[in-house]
């Protein structure tokens, strides 16, 4: 069939880009994380020998660390400033600029938690208000290089937002598959872009299974299925930016949410990349993963001392993390173990408290996934697991406007007539000291 030919065709070649600062193709193969079998850089995601996941393997970038740093610093204020470390053959660009989000020093939250230095990587500042804009940027760019004309995804909401928006900006048709019970905000903020929203009667794992099957039947780039190795690379830019924004230094500890485990493992990979090329000195931070108790297969595996993540049926308000069968779960466990970190879980009540704590101390309103991250950060601090002298970075991956219902009824609204007397009656003494 024609689409099969297109799908497996060799990557399109691009003319040189003299003004773009693009030096060379650093990616040289897809490589199985289990058995190291290599494959060409096409649309595939699973090793045919052992079914292990494929990831992008790179040749060493050309140039010295100083030259690399200068090239990065001369790049755009988007994730494409790190194009030397991303798996594209042509000029790196996208219609919806993404990344270079604020790294916010959170002194009030740090003080509350007894931490010396705490930074929040504020991913709500991305175009569709979550880190998913990063992975979609890379996936769409690569998908277009591979000749795909339609994009799709299995999503818990944030990815649906990002795929539909980036596809709209690029002029590509798109299909997003979501669990039918997703938060209304995420569905509305997806459909507005003119995508095809397909709501599945089932949980995310059922959506994912369907998309895995459909990816073999349709000539589409399912960003987190058949082009997943490229997609996942986008999360490395979270680490690159953090290091650059810290003045080319590595934090001591990172706290990040875990759904599939892809972001968590790729953040560590990002720090390791910069260490390997001499842009950073030191070692990968202590990696701490955050899950919701109602969907904590990775935290349970970590607690049991095994990398076997038994799948669960999710039951949590943190729907963006509700993956019961996490693809990168085993690697997330191994990473936490190897770096002296931990994978913790928190209850739905703690998640809501985490959302409020972050909002009240930093001015950043996050969705449930950020509540999970903040609550785990607080839990670790309260347990004395964080050395007071550590520099900690927490990744806040999505915007609170996407899960508004979770904070409903957690605060009071004072309703009065437009009368000074009524105001005085309600707020007697307030602010008149």
């Amino acid at each position: 069939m024609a689409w099969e030919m297109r799908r497996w065709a060799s990557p399109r070649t691009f003319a040189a880009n003299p003004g773009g600062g693009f030096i060379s193709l650093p990616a040289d193969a897809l490589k199985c994380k289990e058995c190291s079998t290599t494959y060409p850089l096409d649309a595939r995601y699973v090793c045919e020998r052992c079914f292990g996941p494929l990831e992008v393997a790179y040749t060493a970038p050309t140039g010295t660390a100083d030259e690399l740093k200068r090239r990065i610093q001369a790049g755009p204020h988007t994730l494409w400033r790190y194009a030397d470390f991303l798996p594209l053959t042509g000029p790196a660009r996208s219609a919806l600029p993404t990344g270079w989000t604020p790294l916010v020093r959170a002194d009030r939250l740090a003080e509350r938690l007894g931490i010396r230095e705490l930074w929040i990587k504020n991913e709500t500042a991305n175009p569709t208000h979550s880190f998913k804009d990063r992975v979609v940027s890379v996936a769409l760019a690569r998908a277009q290089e591979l000749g795909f004309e339609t994009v799709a995804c299995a999503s818990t909401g944030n990815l649906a937002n990002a795929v539909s928006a980036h596809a709209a900006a690029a002029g590509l048709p798109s299909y997003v598959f979501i669990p039918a019970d997703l938060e209304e905000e995420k569905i509305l903020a997806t459909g507005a872009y003119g995508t095809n929203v397909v709501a599945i009667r089932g949980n995310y794992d059922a959506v994912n299974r369907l998309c895995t099957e459909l990816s073999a039947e349709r000539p589409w780039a399912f960003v987190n299925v058949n082009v997943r190795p490229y997609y996942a690379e986008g999360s490395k830019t979270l680490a690159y930016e953090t290091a650059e924004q810290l003045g080319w230094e590595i934090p001591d500890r990172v706290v990040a949410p875990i759904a599939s485990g892809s972001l968590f493992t790729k953040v560590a990979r990002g720090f390791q990349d910069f260490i390997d090329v001499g842009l950073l000195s030191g070692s990968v931070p202590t990696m701490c993963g955050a899950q919701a108790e109602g969907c904590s297969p990775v935290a349970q595996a970590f607690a049991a001392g095994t990398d076997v993540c038994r799948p669960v049926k999710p039951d949590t308000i943190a729907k963006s993390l509700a993956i019961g069968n996490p693809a990168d779960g085993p690697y997330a466990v191994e990473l936490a173990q190897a770096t002296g970190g931990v994978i913790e879980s928190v209850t739905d009540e703690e998640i809501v408290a985490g959302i409020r704590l972050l909002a009240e101390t930093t001015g950043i309103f996050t969705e449930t996934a950020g509540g999970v991250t903040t609550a785990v950060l607080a839990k670790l601090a309260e347990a004395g697991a964080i050395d007071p002298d550590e520099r900690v970075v927490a990744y806040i991956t999505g915007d609170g406007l996407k899960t508004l219902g979770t904070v409903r009824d957690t605060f009071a609204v004072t309703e009065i007539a437009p009368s000074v007397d009524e105001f005085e009656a309600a707020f007697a003494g307030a602010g008149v000291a």
Partner: protein
Amino acid sequence: MAITVKLPTQLRDAAGNQTEAKVEGATVGEALSSLYDQHGELRTRIADDGGGLRRFVNVYLGGEDIRFLEGLETPVNDGDELTILPAVAGG
């Protein structure tokens, strides 16, 4: 009992390019053994050394992950459908 096993694209070259196979067995494990008897290479691709499944192989019976059932011991009935899929998608 006659069971249908649906094969993912990644395994079809080891099964004569078929999209599915008809096998026999009273459990998921027996059905998979029957599959391996027909297509020997599939055993090395999806089974581990202990006879279990490799960690990135998912098997579904009628759409349900067998790990929520009784794993390889899950009984199967005549006409049931097993689906083998890679576990590494999503997220």
